[in-house]
């Protein structure tokens, strides 16, 4: 047994696998425990051998980038070890995600709560961008919430580092509702601005409590965006008509954001407008956004320990075993890593072949899949 094998064995013995929590096309997730401390962890066992061309691309990405990023607002990858032919990722255990919180109508959001979530999202994303990493799949479902209320960006299965100038990137990333217009027009050279659009959509969703730009297909997505924000002019977004997949979508007038976000403060509207700017180069960066007046305006962002939390899915009088409840919660927290993985694995490679477009049904199945598992 050589040194590498020995190290691997000692790592794998640090954790105990308990119950299986969920299974996707690409990974099986277990609830586990660190034996020394007793702390709960999630163990994501990646299926190898199913794909002939070796390890799944998103697993490589996840390991590669999470290994680099250590931040309060980015999910922690605690360890990686292999067992037989499988790769195991040991991840921080998290209770819920922002989507659950948004959908739970019993939660009332104060403006300060939204501010707090935005601060944590932007801090995490700023840290990624500072390390030259694009997340490329930001959505409420991928913003996990720890039991102390801290928000953590998760699911780096589509992440990549900033491209070198001569490398084309795929435009088939980011879940459709959160995908910026430049990617919908097939742009192959983009940057951190594309993540910022998603943040804008999430900000709007936090205020509206419903997805802001829910397109039914890629074509429809552009229509929905233009209808909401007006068709961009060449002035507003220089050069967009020469993007690879450019097509005429139709002329829609601009309506002020104020008309829809009636309760938002002036500063909130101003930040939202900057996040949803058409020209990606003019879109506010994560760092600039964190210095935006919105965050300095009272009220102060809510302390993370006081933020609204999701109610446990199983009610008290139900005789659901405690571990089943935890199991459901864990499944929820990792469903980005299991349920949605199917489509991602099919389009993970940055190559000349265009990956198949995301289907609306994929998203729907993710949602229904989780709820059917959640209800006792």
């Amino acid at each position, binding site marked *: 047994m050589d040194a590498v094998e020995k190290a691997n064995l000692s790592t794998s013995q640090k954790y105990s696998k308990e119950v299986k929590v969920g299974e996707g096309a690409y990974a099986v997730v277990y609830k586990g425990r660190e034996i020394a401390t007793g702390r709960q962890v999630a163990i994501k066992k990646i299926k190898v051998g199913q794909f002939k061309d070796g390890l799944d691309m998103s697993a490589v990405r996840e390991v590669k980038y999470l290994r680099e990023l250590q*931040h*309060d607002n980015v999910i922690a990858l605690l360890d990686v070890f292999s067992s037989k032919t499988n790769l195991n990722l040991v991840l921080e255990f998290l209770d819920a995600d922002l989507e659950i919180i948004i959908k739970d109508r019993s939660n009332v959001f104060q403006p*300060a709560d939204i*501010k707090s979530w935005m*601060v944590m999202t932007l*801090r995490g994303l*700023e*840290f990624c961008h*500072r390390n*030259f990493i694009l997340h490329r799949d930001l959505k409420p479902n991928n913003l996990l919430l720890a039991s102390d209320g801290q928000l953590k960006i998760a699911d780096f299965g589509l992440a990549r*580092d*900033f*491209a*070198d*100038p*001569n490398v084309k990137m795929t435009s088939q990333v980011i879940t459709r509702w959160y995908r910026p217009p*430049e990617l919908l027009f097939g*742009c*192959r*050279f*983009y*940057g*951190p*601005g*594309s993540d910022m659009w998603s943040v804008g959509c999430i900000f709007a969703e936090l205020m509206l409590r419903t997805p802001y730009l829910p397109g039914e297909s890629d074509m429809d997505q552009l229509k929905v965006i233009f209808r909401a924000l007006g068709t961009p002019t060449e002035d507003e*977004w*220089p*050069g*967009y008509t*020469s*993007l690879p997949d450019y097509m005429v979508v139709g002329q829609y007038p601009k309506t002020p954001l104020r008309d829809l976000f009636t309760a938002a403060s002036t500063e909130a509207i101003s930040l939202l407008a900057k996040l949803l700017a058409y*020209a*990606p*180069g003019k*879109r506010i960066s994560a*760092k600039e956004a*964190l*210095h935006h*007046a919105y*965050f*300095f*305006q*009272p*009220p*102060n*962002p*809510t*302390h993370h320990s*006081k933020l609204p939390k999701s109610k446990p899915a199983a009610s008290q009088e139900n005789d659901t075993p405690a571990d089943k409840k935890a199991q459901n919660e864990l499944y929820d927290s990792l469903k980005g890593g299991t349920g949605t993985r199917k489509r991602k694995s099919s389009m993970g490679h940055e190559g000349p072949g265009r990956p198949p477009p995301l289907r609306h049904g994929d998203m729907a199945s993710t949602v229904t899949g989780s709820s059917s598992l959640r209800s006792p």
Partner: protein
Amino acid sequence: MSRQSILRASTTSGRIATPNVGSRSTGPSAAPTIGGFYGGLRDDTGKISEYSAKDDQCPICKTERYFNQKMRLLVSTCYHKMCDSCIERLYSLGPAPCPICGKTLRKMGFMTQTFEDLAVEKDVFIRRRIAKEFNKRRENFSSDKEYNDYLEDVEDITFNLINEVDVEKTEARIAAHREENAALIELNIQREERDVMAAQEEEERERQEKLERAKEIRREEELERAERAKESQRILEELARGKDAKQVVAQSREATAKREAKRLAERNAAIMATMASTNKRRGEALIPDPPHKPLADDWYDYGDKYVLRRDYDDAVSELVRGDMERLALAGGYRVEDAWNRAVRYAVAGLETTPLVGLPS
């Protein structure tokens, strides 16, 4: 009543064909005369204070509104309508029976009609009367059950009066209750008044605070404008004196930014103070929310160890030059980011201690 509110009354009622502005009364509302508009007189808040309709008719003298635009229909204590001239004719010599039901009425006892439906009118009137006498509160009872029983009784009495069931017995019950609880009723009336006063005061104070704040902001804006004008005047003068333009502009920008920051801080402090006082008044335990700090980590990015140049001789980035530059611009790709990364990694690498003991 202002012209505006009359017009609003006429347009919102929906019962009118054309608002007859010509015969509109401009007199004080103490002696309201109904002009050529229907739906009723409205008070300052837009609520109808006296109801009237186009097809009104006095049931006694059969005068129709069509013939007498200024006719007022009032309601007797037995809830029968009659016009003001009939009231004058029948009751100016003292109490007399109602021409419809025979109940003895007095001229003073007539009320204005607020609701279209007289049943509602009656209901509201009786409830108001009962509420005045049966004003006990929860704290006057020792248990929820007793309080609930009391509320049930009150509801019974109200129902009886409205539907005229056992009126005499019910009136006797009311009288008995009044006698028994005279002191308590008086006390509760006083309490009620105090509560209403306090609520009004609170509202007034909050309104004042808001007004004050708005005034303050306006004053500041004015100040800002004046300062800006002064500033540009100063710049012009200095330029005329032949100073370096760039320097002058930079100086003025700095001064403006400083002023703005100070102003913002002051305003925020003021808002926080009022919010804190509101929270305290509401008795909320306040766990402090620390003010926003943009970045919370202390991760070192070597930013102080190098300065990024504006351009590099970079063969790799040739692709995004020229035609591609336009595409990159449209997509938000910045070649500077790639340069920044390359330079930072190089700089960071300088601090790494070489590995020792590697097989050569």
